C-alpha cells in the first residue's frame, strides 16, 4: 500500500502517519508547506519522500488542485490522506472528481477487510455510523483528527523535494483578502478538562463566568458552533462537533448547550460529561453523566465559590 499524506500542520502529519501505520502502509510520501522543512520532526516518521510546497495557503484553490493532480500522477498512491479540514475536503473532492475517483470525508476508521478498503464515518449528523467499501483506487480520504500518534522510527530523513508555487496563476477566481484568526491557547484535542459554552449565555461578556471556571480548573475553553460561527464570540477553531473539533477530555463541562447530535458527536469520547442546562428536556441531559438542571447564571458562580472554598484543583 502506497500512501500520500497531505497536511498543513505537523500535528496533522503525525496523526495521518499513524493512520497509515494502522493500515499497514509500506511506502509513505507527504506534501506539506515549506515552513515545515526544518526536517527535525520529519526524520523519525519513516517517510520515503517529502514534497515541500511554498506558499501553501496563498495558492488559489484551482492552483492547489492542479499541483495535487500532478503529484498524484507522479507518486501513483493507492490512498491519499488529509485532515478533515475545510480546505482539504474541498481539495480532495475536486481532485477525486477530476480523476474519477472516490472521496470520503470525516473518516473515523479505515481497515482492509476481505481485500477491500472499508471506512467508517459519521452519518445523519453523527447519530449514526456508516460503513462503506471503496470500490476503486486511488481513494481520497479526509480523516477526522482525534489525536492519534505514530510510532517513532529510527531517524532516517525523507528525501526532500521542493515544489514551487505556480509562477503565474491565470485562474478566474482571485483571493482578494485573508484575515488570520489568533490562535487561542493550546490544542483542544489534548485538553484534560474542557469547559464548553453554548447559546445559553445571553451576552458575550457573560462568558467571563466560564473563563473564570476554566482558569480555576486549568481547563481549556470550547463552544458550540453558533457561538463561533453565528455570533463570533469564540474563535472558529474552538467549536466542537461534527463540523468542528473532536475531543476526548477526562471531563467535559457543557454549559448552556442543548446537546444536538451534531454537537455531541465531537465530545462522545469524553470520559465524564457534565451538563448545566435549566431545560430538563434538553437532549444533553440524556448524554450526560452528571446533569445540573439549573440556571447557569446561578450555578456557575456557586460552583466557583465551592471550588475556591474547598481549594479544589484538577488532578
Amino acid at each position, binding site marked *: 500500500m502506497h500512501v500520500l499524506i497531505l497536511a498543513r500542520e505537523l500535528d496533522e502529519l503525525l496523526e495521518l502517519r499513524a493512520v497509515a501505520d494502522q493500515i499497514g502502509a509500506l511506502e509513505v510520501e507527504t506534501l506539506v508547506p515549506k515552513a515545515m522543512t526544518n526536517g527535525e520532526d520529519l526524520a523519525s516518521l519513516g517517510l520515503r519522500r517529502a514534497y515541500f510546497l511554498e506558499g501553501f*495557503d496563498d495558492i488559489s*484553490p*484551482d492552483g492547489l488542485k492542479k499541483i495535487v493532480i500532478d503529484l498524484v500522477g507522479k507518486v501513483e498512491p493507492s490512498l491519499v490522506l488529509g485532515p478533515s479540514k475545510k480546505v482539504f*475536503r474541498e481539495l480532495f*473532492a*475536486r481532485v*477525486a*472528481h477530476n480523476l*474519477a*475517483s*472516490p*472521496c470520503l*470525508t470525516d473518516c473515523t476508521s479505515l481497515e482492509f477487510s476481505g481485500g477491500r478498503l472499508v471506512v467508517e464515518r*459519521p*452519518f*445523519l*449528523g453523527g*447519530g*449514526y*455510523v456508516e460503513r*462503506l*467499501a*471503496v470500490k476503486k483506487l486511488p481513494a481520497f480520504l479526509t480523516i477526522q483528527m482525534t489525536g492519534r500518534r505514530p510510532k517513532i522510527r529510527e531517524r532516517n530523513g525523507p528525501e526532500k523535494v521542493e515544489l514551487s508555487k505556480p509562477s503565474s496563476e491565470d485562474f*478566474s*477566481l*482571485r483571493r*482578494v*483578502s*485573508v484575515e488570520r*484568526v489568533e*490562535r487561542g491557547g493550546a490544542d483542544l484535542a489534548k485538553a484534560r*478538562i474542557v469547559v464548553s459554552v453554548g447559546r445559553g449565555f445571553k451576552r458575550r461578556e457573560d462568558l467571563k463566568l466560564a473563563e473564570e471556571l476554566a482558569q480555576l*480548573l486549568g481547563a481549556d475553553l470550547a463552544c458550540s458552533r453558533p457561538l463561533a*460561527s453565528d455570533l463570533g464570540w469564540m474563535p*472558529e*477553531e474552538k467549536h466542537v462537533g*461534527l463540523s468542528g473539533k473532536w475531543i476526548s477530555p477526562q471531563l467535559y463541562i457543557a454549559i448552556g448547550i442543548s446537546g444536538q*447530535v451534531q454537537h455531541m*458527536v465531537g465530545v462522545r469520547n469524553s470520559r*465524564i*460529561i*457534565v451538563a448545566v442546562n435549566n431545560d430538563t428536556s434538553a437532549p444533553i*441531559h440524556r*448524554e*450526560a*453523566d*452528571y*446533569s*445540573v*438542571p*439549573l440556571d447557569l447564571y446561578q*450555578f456557575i*458562580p*456557586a460552583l466557583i465559590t*465551592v*471550588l475556591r472554598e474547598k*481549594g*479544589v*484543583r*484538577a488532578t
Partner: protein
Amino acid sequence: MPVLHVFVKQVPDISTLEYDPSTLAPRFEKATPRLGEADLVAFEAAIRIKESWGGEVVVLSAGDGVNELVLREALAMGADRCFYVSDQRLAGADSWVTANVLSRLSRKVGKADLLLCGEASTDSGNHQLGPRLSEALNIPCVTHVVGIELSEGLVRVRRILEDRTETFETGSPLIATASLELASPRLPSLLMIKAASKKPIIKVNLAELGLDEGLLEPLVERLSVRVFKTARRNIVLEGGPLECAEKLVESLVKEGVFKA
C-alpha cells in the same frame, strides 16, 4: 439579470428519525422527508439575490423516490421553477454519481451565473457536491460561504476556515456552497404556498441526460448504517445552586479528576 441554480437534497428529518432496536439501523421508511438544512440556507441566499437583482431561481434535485411535495416547499419560498430526476438507480448513488447527474441536469436546464448548494447534506455530510460540480462543469468553486455580494459582472464571496477568513472575487459563473451562517431560511407564507402550486415542477428522466454507464456507477458502496449508542450514567443533581455545586465537586473528586 442573474440566473441562479440551487441544488437541494431530500433528506430524512433527523429529529424524528427512529432506529430498529434489533439491527440498530435507521428506519428511513418511517422518516419524514424534508429539504437539507444547508440546502435551505443556500436557497434563501439565492432568493435574496433575486429580490435585489431580479433574475430567476431554479431548483434542481436528484435521488431515488424524490417527493414533489418536498420540492414544492422550495417553490413556496420563492423559486421559479424546479427540475428533478427520481430514479431507482440513484438509490446507491455516491457523491461521484450525484455530481454527474446534477451537473448534466444543470446543463440541460441552461446557463447559470451562480450555482448554489449546501456545504454538506444533512444525512451523508459528504461536503462534496459543490467541489465535484466544479470539476464536472469546469466552473470555479468556493466552499463554506458566509457572505455573497454581487456587483456588475463580479461576485465577491467570503468564507470562514478554521484559522482564517478569506474573500474571493470572480466573474460569473461561480459555484458557492453555503455555510449554515450564510442566511436564515424564511418560512413561506400561506399566500406563497398557494402561489407555488401553479409553478412548474418538471421531472426529467435519467435516460434523457445521456450519462455513460461509468458516470452512473458508484465508486463506494454502503455496507451498513447503525445508530451510535453511548452509555452515560445520567445522574441528575438535585437541590439549589450551592448544594448541586457541592455534590458535583464531591463526585468529581471521587472520580479522580479533582482533588481537594
